[in-house]
């Protein structure tokens, strides 16, 4: 479980995140939605400690994470996996080396065990026969999928995904959503996903937090989202015509 209390973060005097509190439960996919530039990435980076919060607290299973120093954070960090918005694969390594890297760094597995685990994770994200390519030789969507494989290779307890399906075709996008949901349940992970993809919201939204201009405007699940009367949320959710028609006809 991850608990955020009153998170505030500003850059050069401009508040980007204002007083956001939320609880993220394990075994379910928690979504953070909001328009581009609303502060999703900044909020996620505050949660994992890549950005220092100005005010507020973050707890991991009731351990106050924001108060810890680098050394103490390290123990919690080993249980985290994160997919960055731009995938953030290591340029100097091949696909296989990228996924194997956390294993090399933190386990004493044998060569075979490592390569089995790497291949297993790569297969789960539908990357086959690409082990020896470098990240520059992959498409954007493939890079994302390799990055997911790297994020789950150590079976983390906390998984963070920053826009896992931006830049993917609808079909692959669904595969990725299913994958994230499956491993979340399988490993009982606390998963937090940033997205502005309504498809994944309707598929995966067991808990949804809507951020607008750095503030939490709404919280609920995928069934409640269609019925909400929060105007900003409706503007966001029903931005496309089809969805609007659906809402109209359901009334």
């Amino acid at each position, binding site marked *: 479980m991850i608990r955020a209390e009153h998170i505030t973060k500003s850059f050069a005097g401009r508040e980007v995140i204002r007083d956001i509190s939320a609880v993220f439960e394990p075994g379910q996919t928690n979504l953070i939605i909001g328009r581009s530039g609303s502060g999703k990435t900044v909020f996620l*980076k505050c949660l*994992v400690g*890549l950005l220092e919060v100005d005010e507020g607290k973050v707890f991991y299973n009731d351990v106050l994470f924001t108060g810890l120093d*680098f050394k103490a*954070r*390290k*123990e*919690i*960090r*080993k249980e*985290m996996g*994160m997919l*960055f*918005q*731009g995938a*953030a*694969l*290591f*340029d*100097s390594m091949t696909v296989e080396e990228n996924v194997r890297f*956390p294993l*090399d*760094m*933190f386990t004493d597995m044998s060569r075979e065990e490592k390569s089995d685990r790497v291949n297993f994770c790569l297969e789960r994200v539908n990357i086959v026969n690409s082990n020896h390519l470098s990240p520059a030789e992959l498409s954007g969507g493939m890079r994302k999928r390799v990055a997911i494989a790297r994020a789950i290779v150590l079976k983390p307890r906390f998984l963070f995904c920053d826009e896992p399906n931006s830049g993917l075709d609808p079909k692959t996008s669904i595969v990725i959503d299913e994958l994230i949901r499956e491993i979340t349940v399988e490993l009982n992970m606390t998963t937090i996903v940033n997205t502005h993809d309504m498809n994944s919201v309707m598929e995966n939204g067991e808990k949804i937090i809507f951020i607008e201009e750095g503030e939490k405007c709404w919280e609920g699940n995928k069934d409640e989202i269609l019925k909400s009367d929060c105007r900003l949320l409706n503007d966001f959710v029903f931005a496309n015509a089809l969805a609007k028609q659906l809402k109209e006809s359901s009334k």
Partner: protein
Amino acid sequence: MFRFLAGFGSYWMLLGRVFARPEKHSIYYRQTVKELISLGLRSMGIVIIISFFMGAVITLQTAYNTENPIYPTYLIGLGARDSILLEFSSTIVALILAGKVGSNIASEIGTMRVTEQIDALELMGINSASYIILPKVVATVLFNPFLTLISIITGIVGGWIAGTAAGVITSQDYIYGIQYAFIPYYITYALIKTVVFAFIITTVSAYQGYIVEGGSLEVGRASTKAVVYSSIAILLFNVILTQLLLS
């Protein structure tokens, strides 16, 4: 001025993180070997070419500046040797490497920063400063003394070939000259300077790359800054070290 001091402070703080205890030695060892090849071996070509031609030019210039019947020609060899040993193969080569290796380090690390690769390392609980920078420091501090020795040798060979080909000095005189009144300590002096300069180039450039914020434009700027600042630091330390080691 304030910004300079703040930058200096965060440079030292970064160094503190770089020299924290490595987490897994086998991986650091592997990275160091990688860096020895990319930062060391790959610089050999440029060092050899430049040293050869500079040795040739130094010898010819010494010859033409000392054209004088009472001046024994073997002094040309001696003059060329000392210029190469004292200044060229340590300081000038370091400046050239600041351009080549420094910009390479800054743009590599800067790119890792803006593409969130450094964040990815930090998130895994890895000390990214140490993981990325320490192997580079170790590799250059170990390998650059070899580059300096190679530069000394090719420089002297270049002078010999140019001097005898132009007919300004005979082979015997040149070889006599480069051995005449030879002070072995000059080699030690050159190597000490090289080690300090290698440390400066690597850490200053790595710092510039590590603190990049923004995009590819800023990465380019960081690599320019890396070259400028490490060159200035080299020139400054050249004066300090010369005063300390030769006085």
